[in-house]
């Protein structure tokens, strides 16, 4: 019981400990430090701007996706061209074979 009232008293003391608190004062050199900070934040040059842009995640994702799309397109086109060439070769072979066979069957021609 005695402890309980002691605790309550201490809690009230803590809650009222900020009564009449003075405002903390900032460092007198704060303005100089802010100026230094602003001076260090120089605008970016063209190369720095380009590097900054290239390292943006959104741009990197777009570049990777574009690269993959171009790769797919080129691979697909190559495959179609190869198939077309093979088809043409087969047709030529077939035509040549068929022509020679016809000659064998009709020796009078």
């Amino acid at each position: 019981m005695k402890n309980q009232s002691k605790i309550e008293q201490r809690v009230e003391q803590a809650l009222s400990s900020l009564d009449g608190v003075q405002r903390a004062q900032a460092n007198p050199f704060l303005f100089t430090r802010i100026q230094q900070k602003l001076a260090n934040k120089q605008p970016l040059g063209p190369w720095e701007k380009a590097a900054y842009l290239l390292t943006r995640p959104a741009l990197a994702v777009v570049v990777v996706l574009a690269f993959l799309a171009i790769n797919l397109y080129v691979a697909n086109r190559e495959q179609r061209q190869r198939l077309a060439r093979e088809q043409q070769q087969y047709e030529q072979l077939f035509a040549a074979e068929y022509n020679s066979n016809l000659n064998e069957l009709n020796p009078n021609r």
Partner: protein
Amino acid sequence: MTELELIDRLKKGDQEAFRFMVTSWQDMVYNTALGLVQNELDAEDVAQEVFVKAYESIQGFKGESKVSTWLYRITVTKSLDFLRSKKRKKRFGYVYSLFGADNELVYNPPEFLHPGVVSERKQVAAELFKALDQLPEQQKVAFVLTRLEGLGHKEVAEVMGNTVPAVESLLQRAKLNLKKQLTAFYKQNLE
């Protein structure tokens, strides 16, 4: 210089006007940041960030609120951002300490003693600040602006973008939570 003149000169990049703004409101910004981050060096960093942000975003300031309200808003935002980033680092510190050689917590903050509290109340105020640090963000902001900066409920509502009843409710809950935490703390330490 009136606030409108000041804003006009700041928008034109007048360095003297900027110096005037910093010297006029530096203690207000620093004291608010100090109450929230509870560390003098961190509060100075936050104060610097606040004025850099103000300098960079003055073109977007329409003068609808007072300069002090605008600076309070930036201070609260920067302080809360700082605390969130510190919390993330602290979590990492805890994990790191689990695997450390001495098996001790890497981050163990010292007691915060506010320089504006009268010396005979410093210790008990440090216990209050420890409890304050455990409050949810909004309750903490409302409490600091009211008790450390002496703002009225209407001004706090303007800074926080809330209504006056909402601020009153935040303060009531803050006080209740502080009481709970302090009671638990003293139960452990006085018995």
